[in-house]
C-alpha cells in the first residue's frame, strides 16, 4: 500500500468488484485469485464469458490459467523485469497515452529512459518468459479499451515489493488506464478487514485516514480530539516489533486477534523474540500458537458476536451484526480495550459502536458521510464525505490526491536468497482454497479440514522423479532457517525448480523456512522467494 500511496497519494483498489465484469482485459499478476479471493475470481470468469481476455503472470499454473489468453510463467521475483519489458514494447509500439502522461503525471522522461534498453529478449533471460509472449501480452494490454491490473501478495511479499508495485503503477500510468470506470490498478486485500485496519490507522506512521503522525498540524488535530499529548515519532511495524523484542528494546506486546507465530517469516526467530518479552498479552478467540506464549490470554468475540463494520478490498464499508452471544466469559474486543484504558486512568467510553464511527468520521472526512443507518441498506465505498454522497466506486476520476501521479524508474533486483548448490529449489508460499491464513478458524471446521487436512509441497513431476519421490511420499524441506517434513503433491502447477507450500499448517509451518528479509520501504517480508533443499524423508 505504501507503494501506491507514494505514486497516487492513496493506496487501495482503484476500482470496485462489480466493475470487473466490464473489463475487456484483465492482467492478473501475482494473484491466485480463484483460491484466495474466490468471489472476485467468479467476477473474472464472468468477464471472460462476456468476452474479456485474461493475461495471467504467475510462476505457478494457477486455475485462472484455464481462462487466460496468455500465461506468462515468470520466475518468482522477476516481476520488474517482466513489467519493464512489457512497457518497453508499449513504448516502441506507441501504445501510450501521451495526453494523460502530459496532463496528469510527472517524471515520464526519466522513466522512459530507464526502460529504453529493457528489450523482451533481455527480459526473457531473467524471467524465463519467451520474448514473443511478452510482446503478445504487451499488445493485448496496450490495445485494450478497459484493461485492469489485479495483484496480491505475489507482487508485494518480496524484498523489492515496493519496487514491484511502482512498476505496476508505471504500466497503468503510461497507458492512461486510471481514473476511469473498469480501468485501473487493483491490489486485492487478503483479509476481511485488512483495508479497514489500515484505514483506521493501525499502522505505525499514520493516524486514521492515512494522516501522518509526524506532521505537526495533523498531530495537533488528533491530540485535541483525544485530549492528550501524542508522540511525533513514527512507531515500529509488526515485523520490526518482532526484531525489537528479540533485541530487547521492546518489552511488552499487546496482540489483538493476530497469530504472528504462524503468519510471520522465520518461525524460530519469532518464537524467541516473543519469549524474550517481559510481558505478552494475547486477546483471541482460540488458544493460538502465539497465545500459548502469552502471560495473559483474554477471550474475545468473533464476527458473529458483535456489531460494527468491515471494509472490504474495494473500500466498501459493510455492516457486521450480532447473531449469537459469545461463549463463557468471552467479551467484545472493544469493551476489553475500553476497560484496560479505564484501569490506566484514561476514560474511553462509548455507548455504542456507532459513536465510534461518528468519531472516526470527524477525524477522517472520507467516511464522514457513513452512518449505520445508511449501511442498513447496502455498503458504502469511501470516499463518502457527506450524508448524501453515494460513495465512490472508482478512484481518481477528477485527479490524483497528490496532484500529479509520479512515474518511478525501477530496475530489476534479484531476490535476496536465490537457489545454490546446497539449496537448489525456490520455495514460494501462499494460500489454498479450503484453509485461511494461520488456520485458527478453518482448521476447526471439520469439513474444511477433511478436504484439506494437511500440509503438502507442490513439486514438478520431473523434479520428483529426480528425487525418486512418489506422490504422497514424505519429503524433508530445509532452508537456512529451519526444516519441516510434509507430503509430496506431484503437480505440473509449479515450474521445474520451484516448490510451493501453503502456510496454514502449524505442524509443518512454511514459515519455519521463509526468509525474514524485509522490503526497505514498507517492511514487508520476502515470503514469496527463498532457497530450499528437498530430500526424501528416510526412516519414516
Amino acid at each position, binding site marked *: 500500500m505504501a507503494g501506491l500511496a507514494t505514486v497516487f497519494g492513496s493506496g487501495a483498489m482503484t476500482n470496485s468488484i462489480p466493475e470487473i465484469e466490464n473489463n475487456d482485459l484483465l492482467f492478473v499478476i501475482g494473484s491466485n485469485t480463484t483460491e484466495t479471493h474466490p468471489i472476485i475470481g467468479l467476477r473474472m470468469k464472468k468477464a471472460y464469458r462476456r468476452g474479456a481476455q485474461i493475461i495471467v503472470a504467475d510462476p505457478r499454473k494457477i486455475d485462472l490459467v484455464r481462462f487466460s489468453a496468455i500465461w506468462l510463467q515468470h520466475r518468482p521475483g522477476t516481476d520488474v523485469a517482466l513489467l519493464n519489458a512489457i512497457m518497453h514494447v508499449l513504448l516502441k509500439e506507441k501504445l501510450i497515452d501521451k495526453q494523460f502522461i502530459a496532463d496528469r503525471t510527472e517524471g515520464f522522461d526519466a522513466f522512459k529512459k530507464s526502460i529504453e534498453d529493457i528489450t523482451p529478449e533481455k527480459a526473457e533471460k531473467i524471467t524465463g518468459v519467451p520474448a514473443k509472449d511478452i510482446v503478445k501480452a504487451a499488445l493485448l494490454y496496450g490495445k485494450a479499451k478497459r484493461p485492469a491490473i489485479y495483484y496480491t501478495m505475489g507482487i508485494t511479499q518480496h524484498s523489492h515489493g515496493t519496487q514491484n508495485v511502482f512498476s505496476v503503477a508505471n504500466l497503468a500510468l503510461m497507458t492512461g488506464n486510471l481514473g476511469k470506470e473498469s480501468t485501473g490498478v487493483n491490489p486485492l486485500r487478503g483479509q*476481511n478487514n485488512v483495508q479497514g485496519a489500515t484505514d483506521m490507522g493501525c499502522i505505525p506512521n499514520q493516524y486514521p485516514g492515512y494522516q501522518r503522525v509526524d506532521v505537526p498540524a495533523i498531530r495537533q488535530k488528533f491530540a485535541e480530539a483525544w485530549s492528550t499529548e501524542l508522540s511525533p515519532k513514527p512507531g515500529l511495524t509488526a515485523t520490526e516489533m518482532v526484531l525489537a523484542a528479540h533485541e530487547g528494546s521492546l518489552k511488552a506486546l499487546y496482540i489483538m486477534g493476530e497469530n504472528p507465530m504462524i503468519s510471520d517469516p522465520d518461525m524460530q526467530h519469532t518464537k524467541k523474540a516473543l519469549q524474550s518479552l*517481559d510481558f505478552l498479552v494475547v486477546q483471541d478467540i*482460540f488458544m493460538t500458537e502465539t497465545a500459548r506464549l502469552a502471560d495473559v490470554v483474554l477471550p474475545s468475540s468473533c464476527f458473529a458476536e458483535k456489531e460494527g463494520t468491515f471494509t472490504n478490498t*474495494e473500500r466498501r*464499508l459493510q455492516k457486521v451484526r450480532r447473531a449469537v452471544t459469545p461463549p463463557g*466469559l468471552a467479551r467484545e474486543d472493544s469493551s476489553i480495550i475500553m476497560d484496560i484504558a479505564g484501569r490506566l486512568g484514561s476514560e474511553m467510553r462509548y455507548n455504542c459502536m456507532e459513536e465510534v464511527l461518528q468519531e472516526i468520521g470527524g477525524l477522517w472526512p472520507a467516511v464522514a458521510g457513513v452512518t449505520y443507518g445508511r449501511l442498513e441498506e447496502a455498503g458504502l465505498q469511501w470516499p463518502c464525505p457527506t450524508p448524501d454522497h453515494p460513495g465512490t466506486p472508482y478512484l481518481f476520476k477528477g485527479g490524483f490526491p497528490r496532484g500529479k501521479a509520479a512515474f518511478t524508474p525501477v530496475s530489476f533486483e534479484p531476490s535476496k536468497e536465490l537457489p545454490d548448490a546446497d539449496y537448489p529449489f525456490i520455495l514460494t508460499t501462499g494460500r489454498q482454497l479450503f484453509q485461511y491464513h494461520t488456520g485458527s478458524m478453518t482448521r476447526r471446521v471439520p469439513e474444511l479440514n477433511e478436504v484439506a487436512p494437511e500440509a503438502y509441497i507442490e513439486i514438478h513431476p520431473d523434479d520428483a522423479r529426480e528425487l525418486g519421490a512418489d506422490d504422497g511420499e514424505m519429503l524433508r524441506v530445509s532452508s537456512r532457517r529451519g526444516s519441516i517434513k510434509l507430503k509430496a503433491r506431484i503437480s505440473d502447477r509449479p515450474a521445474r525448480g520451484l516448490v510451493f507450500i501453503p502456510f496454514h499448517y502449524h505442524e509443518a509451518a512454511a514459515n519455519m523456512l521463509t526468509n525474514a528479509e524485509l522490503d526497505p520501504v514498507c517492511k514487508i517480508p520476502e515470503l514469496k522467494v527463498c532457497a530450499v533443499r528437498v530430500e526424501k524423508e528416510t526412516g519414516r
Partner: protein
Amino acid sequence: MLHLTINGLRVTVPEGTTILDAARSADIPIPTLCHHPKLTPYGGCRLCIVEVKGINRPVTSCTTPVAADMEVATTTPAIERMRKTILELILSDHPNDCMVCEKAGDCTLQELAYFYGVSDNRFEGERRCYTGKDHNPFIGRDMEKCILCGKCVRVCEEVQGVGAIDIAYRGFNAKICPPFEKDLSCEFCGQCVSVCPTGALTGKAWTQRGRQKDVREIDTTCPYCGCGCSLTLHVRRNEIVRVSSRDDTINEGWLCPKGRFGYTFVHSRDRLKTPLIKEKGVHREASWDEALDLIASRLSKIGKKHGPDAIGGLSSARCTNEENYLFQKFMRAVIGTNNVDHCARL
C-alpha cells in the same frame, strides 16, 4: 422498446426480454422450477407455460422472447390444468417425506404442490431408487428428490466455471452426477445447493439443526478474505445452523466453501471462554478483574521504566473498523506510542 399486454395489462420492455422477465417486471407471477435469473434459460420444467394469442400451443415463457404487440395470458383454466398435471408427474417420482426433509418450509416444489393442491397422485408408478451415498463432507446429495431442473449443472458451469456435474443417462434413468458417478470432488462452493429448488442438495452440516421454524436470519459480512461477501446467518437457539447469501449484494449471492460452510468454528469447543494468566509456565483460569488489573499494572510499570516506546500493539485485520480505531487510539493516546500495526504485509 417493445409493447405487449400480459393478462390485459400493458407492459413495455427492452427488445430481447423474455415473456417471463416481462411478466415479473410487472409483478405478474409465473411459477418456475428450473429458472434462475443469473443462469441461461433452460425450458426444462415446463411450469412457466403461457398462452400467446396467435400461437396455437402453450409456450415456455422463460425461453420465448417478447415480440411487438404480443398478447399473453399467464393464467387460464387450460394452463393451470397443465401446470397441475406437470406437478403431479414430478411428484409421482418424488419421495413423500417432507416431514423429515431439511428443505421443508423453504422448498419450491413443496410450495407449488401446496398452491396447486396436489396430494393424491394419479400417476403412481415406478420410482427411481438411488441407494448410493456421496461421501464428500459438505454437500448432501439425495438424488431421489432431484427433479432434473439442471440449475446445479448450469451454476457449476456458468458461474463457477468448474463443470463438476452433468446429467448422465437418458429418460427415466437420467440423473445428475459427477463423472463416472464418483463422489463429488470439486471446489465445494455450494452454489449448487443454493439454487436447488428441492431438498436434493443440502449442506451436510445443516442436518437436523433446524428448518424454518424458530430460525432468525441475520445479515452480516463474511469474516474470511477481503471480498466482503454478504452472509445471512440462520440462527436457532443461539447457534448458527446454516449460512446463505442475499443475491442483491456485491457477491450476487455466490459464496466460497469457507464462507458457506466455514462457520462452525464459532461454536467450536476450543473457543476461549475465560481469561488465563500464566504462572510458572502454565496458564490458569482467572477473573476478568484479575487479568485486566494485571495487564494495567504491568503495562504501567513497563511504560514508566522503559518509556512508552517499549510497548507495542498488534491489531487485527479480523476485527471491526471500530475495534481497530479503538485499539490504535488506546496505543497512541493511552500508552503514548505509535508502535501499532497489523498483519497487512502477511
